[in-house]
């Protein structure tokens, strides 16, 4: 069992300003898992996810990582001058990916705006571009912060499918999510 554990955060804690956001929170993801992080606005879900991604050091507890991960945050990571195509091409090069960019653009329904700079894209198109990164290289762990936001009905269904396929493939997903989940979680962590 423990050989398929991809990430394990133990007794994590975070302080912001003079406030303890959360403490003694543990998160674990094994191959095939979908862990949903749940909590009211401002309880520190984003903070926890950033700790798991290694973006900010946990103020208490420890994190063990045994797999590489993909990150999609509240912001999409697109530069204003980048188009969906150049964004994906750029990260494909960085990651040494051989993926077919045109195919990814087609699957994420970005063929039409493929060459429009991101500052003119709609909210959903920006999010779709970021989701395209997940297809560039295969990484076991996906860390997603409210990934369904801004997506239309089709987009949400497509992302749910992607997540299921990734789990079936031996991957794991840790996602922050409010409201009804369009996917079935294997476990939830409440903050």
């Amino acid at each position, binding site marked *: 069992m423990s050989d398929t554990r991809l990430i394990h955060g133990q007794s994590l804690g975070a302080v912001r300003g003079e406030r303890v956001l959360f403490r003694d929170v543990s998160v674990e993801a094994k191959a095939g898992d979908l862990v949903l992080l749940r909590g009211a606005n401002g309880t520190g879900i984003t903070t926890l996810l*950033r700790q798991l*991604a*290694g*973006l*900010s*050091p946990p103020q208490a507890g420890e994190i063990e990582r045994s797999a590489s*991960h993909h*990150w999609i*945050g*509240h*912001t*999409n*990571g*697109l*530069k*204003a*001058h*980048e188009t969906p195509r*150049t964004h994906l091409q*750029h*990260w494909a*090069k*960085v990651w*040494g990916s051989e993926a077919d960019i045109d195919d990814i653009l087609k699957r994420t329904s970005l063929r039409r705006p493929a060459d429009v*700079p991101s500052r003119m894209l709609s909210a959903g198109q920006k999010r779709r571009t970021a989701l395209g990164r997940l297809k560039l290289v295969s990484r076991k762990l996906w860390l997603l912060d409210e990934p369904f936001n801004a997506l239309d009905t089709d987009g949400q269904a497509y992302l749910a499918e992607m997540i299921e396929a990734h789990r079936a493939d031996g991957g794991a997903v840790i996602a922050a999510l409010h409201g009804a989940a369009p996917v079935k979680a294997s476990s939830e962590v409440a903050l």
Partner: protein
Amino acid sequence: MSNPAPLFSAFRQALSEAWASGAGLLLPIGFFSGTAMLVPFTLGDEAETLAKIGPGVLWLALALASLVTLERVFQADLQDGALDLWVQEEASISLIALTKTLAHWLISGAPLILMAPILGRLLGVPFEDMVPAMAAYGIGGFTFFLWGGVAAALAAGVARAGLLIALIAIPFFVPAIIFGTLSLTEGFDGASILFLSAACLFALGVAPAAMGAALRLAAE
């Protein structure tokens, strides 16, 4: 660094970013026109004074270009989330930052140096004096961009800290400015050009690590 692909990509991305933001074409034109128009007005009309300040004005333009460009680069990276992505790369964020700095120097700094002879002509500096000076502007300008990058990275997390950046960077600019100015009179014969190169090498050794650490902090 076994794999140079991330660095090449970072370089390409930074180049096109700088170009798209108009820094490539407009920065030299802007400074060119700004200097050519404003400096003579404010500084009096004597040819002698102008010739004396001409080379100095270019140093200031380079220093300013480094601050203006890099501040925006790192702040934008933070706001649009691209910094998050870079920080999570295996490739060291220090090298990425160095690569981006180089790209922005190429787009915003190098054209200024190429225009130096023309600007010098405008301000009455003899052409012959300007051409050898370009080497000094090149080395000195890159040094500015390195320190400017450190200051910009430090201030990236702070809301709109343009002047904080200037405050941090200017002290680091001083050695390059001193040796640079001296080397203009000395030419390639003097020791100043060596000291200038040493200042640049020192910056090259220290600045990337500092930028990396500062960017990591900003991403937190």
